[in-house]
């Protein structure tokens, strides 16, 4: 069977993916851009789900002008956009998994659903994975209740649906997103009772000037959000975290217990305070979306700052698999400015690798963005040093707390499986079904790994992630069968 062929396939249509597409298409190679959203833009350039939703939030309208100018360039290119497709597997020409090795003369066959213009597979010589990140929860008693959401969810509801969470909201976690979200809610008059932050107010001040040197826009973003919170007298509580949700699974959150944590994240339960809220908006940084790079067999390593795994890559942004590159938040969580630069950087590497550009041309192009990219990388490093994952936060969970929400696996069961001899994540998975549910371990692998490490005294970085097999997202059998034109007659 013949599939549409491209020199380069980019997976993920956020800032990194768009920048990579523009850079590579300008050099004349054929490019496919695959995106699962209803529109391009990813989570940074969020647009309403449909033009019938006419409201744009304050920060959104500013981003849209920038996005429109990117799109104006994009529409003049020959980039083939596959919109609203979910990639569920990447194979070689024979339809076999890559398993960490790609032969030089082989191509990648990218399978997705639903079909787009009657295509459900394309082939490409090189790949850029710009799959981004998602919010990272840390389990606390009651986190499975209706009313506990991530800051990302609140932002998506606001920007894609013009929807505000009702009632009283507590915003908590680590990272800059929670401040942005809290400030945005306040502008709409939502009652935010407090913003809890895992870092200390004093963290990182010594190095802030070297990290932020020249990055004025980054200063402003943070300062603006802070000013909005202070003007509205919303308490910002540093070194605090959510201890427990009050309420039940039928009626949802009715209140919250929160309090101080120490510098390693260990909860100081004697400082616990109660408050009445309807919504707990909480996440502790981000997890890179690595399902595809795991499935391809790329090497990964544990990032102790994020408390999650990410793909290994070299100075060309190439992973351990030849012709598979990464760009954007999946590498460093540096936000849009770094993602745009990395997209270009990865595209330059692809052009060089495929021979469309000489080494000299590639070096010249790299030289243009090198210094500003290094500055953005430094900023990302500063940010995630301040907001590094605090392993003590896992002590907030009690024995009954769900660790794997999809399969209903509680902390006590994880502990029992380790006492039963499970020495790695795979062993825990086999004994408890942890990670085998709807989310396929996206929200519990890292947490379970941190628990396993703390119980056994191992380093998290010495643990391996379980194998990921296609389809990497749930796909209906009906669809797979129809796509392969398998007909089952009575």
């Amino acid at each position, binding site marked *: 069977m013949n599939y549409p062929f491209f020199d380069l396939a980019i997976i993920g249509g956020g800032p990194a993916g768009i920048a990579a597409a523009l850079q590579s298409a300008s050099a004349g190679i054929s490019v496919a851009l695959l995106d699962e959203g209803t529109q391009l833009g990813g989570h940074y350039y969020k647009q309403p789900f449909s033009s019938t*939703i006419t*409201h744009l939030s304050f920060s959104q309208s500013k981003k849209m002008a920038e996005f429109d100018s990117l799109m104006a360039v994009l529409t003049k290119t020959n980039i083939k956009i596959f919109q609203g497709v979910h990639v569920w597997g990447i194979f070689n020409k024979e339809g076999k998994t890559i398993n960490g090795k790609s032969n030089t003369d082989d191509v990648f066959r990218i399978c997705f659903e639903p079909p787009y213009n009657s295509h459900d597979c394309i082939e490409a010589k090189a790949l850029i994975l710009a799959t981004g990140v998602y919010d990272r929860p840390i389990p606390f008693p009651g986190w499975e209740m209706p*009313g506990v*959401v991530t800051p*990302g969810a609140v*932002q998506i509801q606001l920007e894609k649906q013009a*929807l505000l969470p009702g009632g009283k909201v507590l915003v908590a976690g680590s990272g800059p997103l929670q401040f942005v979200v809290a400030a945005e809610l306040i502008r709409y008059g939502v009652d935010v009772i407090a913003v809890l932050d895992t870092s200390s107010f004093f963290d990182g001040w010594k190095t802030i000037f070297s990290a932020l040197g020249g990055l004025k826009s980054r200063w402003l973003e943070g300062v603006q959000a802070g000013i909005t919170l202070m003007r509205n007298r919303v308490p910002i509580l540093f070194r605090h975290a959510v201890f427990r949700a009050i309420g039940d*699974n039928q009626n949802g959150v009715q209140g919250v217990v929160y309090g101080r944590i120490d510098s390693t994240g260990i909860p100081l339960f004697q400082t616990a305070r109660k408050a009445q809220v309807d919504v707990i908006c909480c996440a502790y940084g981000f997890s890179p979306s690595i399902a595809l790079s795991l499935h391809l067999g790329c090497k990964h390593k544990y990032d102790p700052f994020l408390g999650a795994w990410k793909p290994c890559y070299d100075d060309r942004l190439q992973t351990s698999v030849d012709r598979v590159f990464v760009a954007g938040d999946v590498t460093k969580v540096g936000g849009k400015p770094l993602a745009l630069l990395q997209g270009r950087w990865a595209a330059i590497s692809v052009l060089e690798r495929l021979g469309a550009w000489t080494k000299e041309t590639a070096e010249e192009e790299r030289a243009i963005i090198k210094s500003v990219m290094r500055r953005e990388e430094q900023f990302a490093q500063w940010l995630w040093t301040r907001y590094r994952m605090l392993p003590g936060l896992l002590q907030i969970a009690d024995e009954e707390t769900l660790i794997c929400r999809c399969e*209903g696996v509680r902390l006590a069961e994880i502990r029992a499986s380790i006492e039963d001899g499970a020495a790695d994540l795979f062993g825990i998975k086999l004994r408890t079904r942890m990670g085998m549910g709807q989310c396929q371990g996206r929200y519990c692998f890292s947490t379970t790994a941190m628990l396993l490490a703390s119980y056994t005294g191992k380093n998290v970085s010495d643990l391996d992630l379980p194998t990921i097999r296609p389809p990497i997202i749930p796909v209906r059998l009906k669809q797979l069968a129809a796509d392969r034109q398998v007909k089952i007659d009575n």
Partner: protein
Amino acid sequence: MSAIRIPKSRQDKSFDIEVDGIKVLAYEGETVATALQCAGIKVFFKQEGSLPPNRLFCGMGTCRQCLVTIDDQVNCLACQTLAYPGMKVRTSL
């Protein structure tokens, strides 16, 4: 308390969907999750056994904790599926 639509944020193209046989208001361009939340429905789906109910969590289709039954099709993402007139949503088996 229910979620709130930002006033004047959408074109006045409203219609009804049916949730467990009860009419619920939705606007064109809204997801099932939005319509449910605005109607005060926080539990999207009651799961069998001791599993907690489905509800909105990540909002981006990654956590798959918002699955509902739509027009007899099980496991549909409430946060990513746009509502349409006459859609029938079920919040339990």
